[in-house]
């Protein structure tokens, strides 16, 4: 529907309402219908034609789902949506963000690879009058909105669960941590959160904490070695699903699937639930990328409608993760609609 036809409709509605009011000689009840029309008109007026630029670290499963949800909403609202996939290369991402700022979109949505890379550019964006939304990891520069998990808190929750199952004599208390990329803050925060909790229980012993570079094979190799040294290993805490799949196969090859249990911080990708249902993962602490995508959309349209000066507010939308323990918890993994790509 074009802008002029909606204005015409508004006028028609306005005229009709005036006529009705005059004829009936009463003044109040009819304005509510008019106000509801106005609400939508104001929404459309604020959002239509606005540009949202999106710079993820790469377009993996999680990021693609965010992108799909964002695109569906922004298309519906008549907004422009631009995606720049940096494919895990930080120099490319930095350049993409700089270019995007020069193109001056209305809102810039970024996923930080670490806490420093984009910090300066995000500040520049807000100074240039662009709203900045950060997703799943905040950088050292806080911005108008943050949407995502609290990685440190996820680490704490996973650790508490592991203590419940492995600590205090219920298990050997031996835990191995599979980190992601050594320098990724998402992984570091989660590890530090977990260690903070593990330290409180003397029966827990972290026997290994190694980065896997998000690689399933590397995770499998590390796990095979750790299992040899610690045959009574009780739990593996993995910061990401796909790499934990490699560890799960190593445990299976060692015939210890029921003894060494895998606890995964999951971004809700369907395969993570599949692996749990196959008994390869024991617990997933999962957040759903699709509902997170909707939170990003909410943050974007909230900022645009609020109209505050970019850089003046610090609004956070923390994701609440949920435990996946069996196939009954399938709802906490998202599923990509068949016709969506």
């Amino acid at each position: 529907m074009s802008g002029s036809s909606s204005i015409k409709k508004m006028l028609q509605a306005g005229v009709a309402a005036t006529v009705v009011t005059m004829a009936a000689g009463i003044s109040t009840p009819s304005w509510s219908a008019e106000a509801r029309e106005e609400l939508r008109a104001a929404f459309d007026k604020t959002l239509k034609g606005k540009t949202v630029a999106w710079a993820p670290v790469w377009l993996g499963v999680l990021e693609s789902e965010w992108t799909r949800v964002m695109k569906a909403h922004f298309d519906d609202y008549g907004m422009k949506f631009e995606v720049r996939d940096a494919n895990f290369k930080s120099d490319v991402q930095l350049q993409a963000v700089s270019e995007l700022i020069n193109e001056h979109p209305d809102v810039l949505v970024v996923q930080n690879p670490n806490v420093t890379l984009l910090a300066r550019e995000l500040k520049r964006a807000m100074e240039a009058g662009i709203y900045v939304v950060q997703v799943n990891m905040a950088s050292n520069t806080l911005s108008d909105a943050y949407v995502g998990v609290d990685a440190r808190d996820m680490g704490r929750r996973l650790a508490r669960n592991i203590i419940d199952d492995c600590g205090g004599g219920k298990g050997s208390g031996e835990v191995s941590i599979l980190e992601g990329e050594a320098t990724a803050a998402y992984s570091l925060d989660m590890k530090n959160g977990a260690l903070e909790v593990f330290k409180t229980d003397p029966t827990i012993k972290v026997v290994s904490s190694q980065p896997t570079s998000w690689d399933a094979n590397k995770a499998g190799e590390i796990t095979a070695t750790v299992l040899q040294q610690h045959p009574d290993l009780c739990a593996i805490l993995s910061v990401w699903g796909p790499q934990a799949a490699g560890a799960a196969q190593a445990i299976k090859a060692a015939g210890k699937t029921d003894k060494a249990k895998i606890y995964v911080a999951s971004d809700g990708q369907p395969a993570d639930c599949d692996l749990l249902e196959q008994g390869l993962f024991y617990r997933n602490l999962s957040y759903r990328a699709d509902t997170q995508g909707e939170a990003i959309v909410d943050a974007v349209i909230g900022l645009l409608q609020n109209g505050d000066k970019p850089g003046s507010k610090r609004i956070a939308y923390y994701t609440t993760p949920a435990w996946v323990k069996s196939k009954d918890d399938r709802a906490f993994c998202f599923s990509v609609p068949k016709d969506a790509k």
Partner: protein
Amino acid sequence: MSADSARWRLRKPSQTMAVFAMCVVLVFVFSVALKGFMTVGNLFALARNISILGILALGMAVVVIGRGLDLSQVASLAVSTAVAIIVMNAGYPTALALFAGLLLAIAIGVLNGFLISVVEMPPLLTTLASSLAVLGITRSTLVPHYVVYLAKGHDAFLQLGGNIAGGIPAPLVVFAVAALFVHLFLSWTVAGRSIYAHGDNPDAARLTGLPTRPLTMLEYALSSAIGYVGGVVMISETALMHLQVAESTLIFDVIMVVVLGGVSLVGGRGNVLSVVVGTLLIGVLLNGMTIMDMDVQTQNIIKGIVLLVAIVLDSYLHPRDEETSKQGD
């Protein structure tokens, strides 16, 4: 060169022997210092962990001996195993799916060889470009999200990543068979000997009538195909293929193992034993560092030092001269 090198060997140990000696020292130190290093279980775990790297290095060695370099090996295996998984998931027989992947891997290798030998592009740039191309095409058409999982119920195939009788890891057996195959090929077939000649002096090889163009295509096809075997072991161990492996440092680890063991980048030198010894040294090192739960910075420092020592050794044993200084200096 053979009479020369025989005299060299009398005076100085070969690099392979020197690296083997380093390896023995390391094993001794770890056995004394690390509880749980010298156990059958850990040695099997060690063997399992180096098998894939070793298989890839065997393929790379064929190309390097022919004075080339294949930077697309890991990308090629990632792409062809991803295709094999997709075909398996579609319900086709496992053997057929694996064969389809193999054909793709060979095709990528032959294409590399064609571009290098017929179009006469430099190997470094050719294989770098082809790895980006195959990865990009696969990602935009078949694997949009970078990870492809093997569907449930391929248990027979997954046993390839498990253990056989007595706890011996199946990947080790694959490595051993591949090593034997490559050894027999390189030392007992005309094509194998021709690869040495090709690497030792490409111009002389062509002038004496060796078909250097088909030979180059064969070298790259073998690198890609043997790499694919490593990739198949990889997916049998994890039941997934994460295409990002093609952008990891794995390819440099492979080259490191090859060079470390004494397959010189100048071509025509080294053999399967060099690759096995190089793989062993890296394997022992990584295993020991994992047992010690060393942080990643320290691990990188140690890896870097070992590589530097090997390069110093290489230049001491094979001093740069007119014959060799053309490449890589």
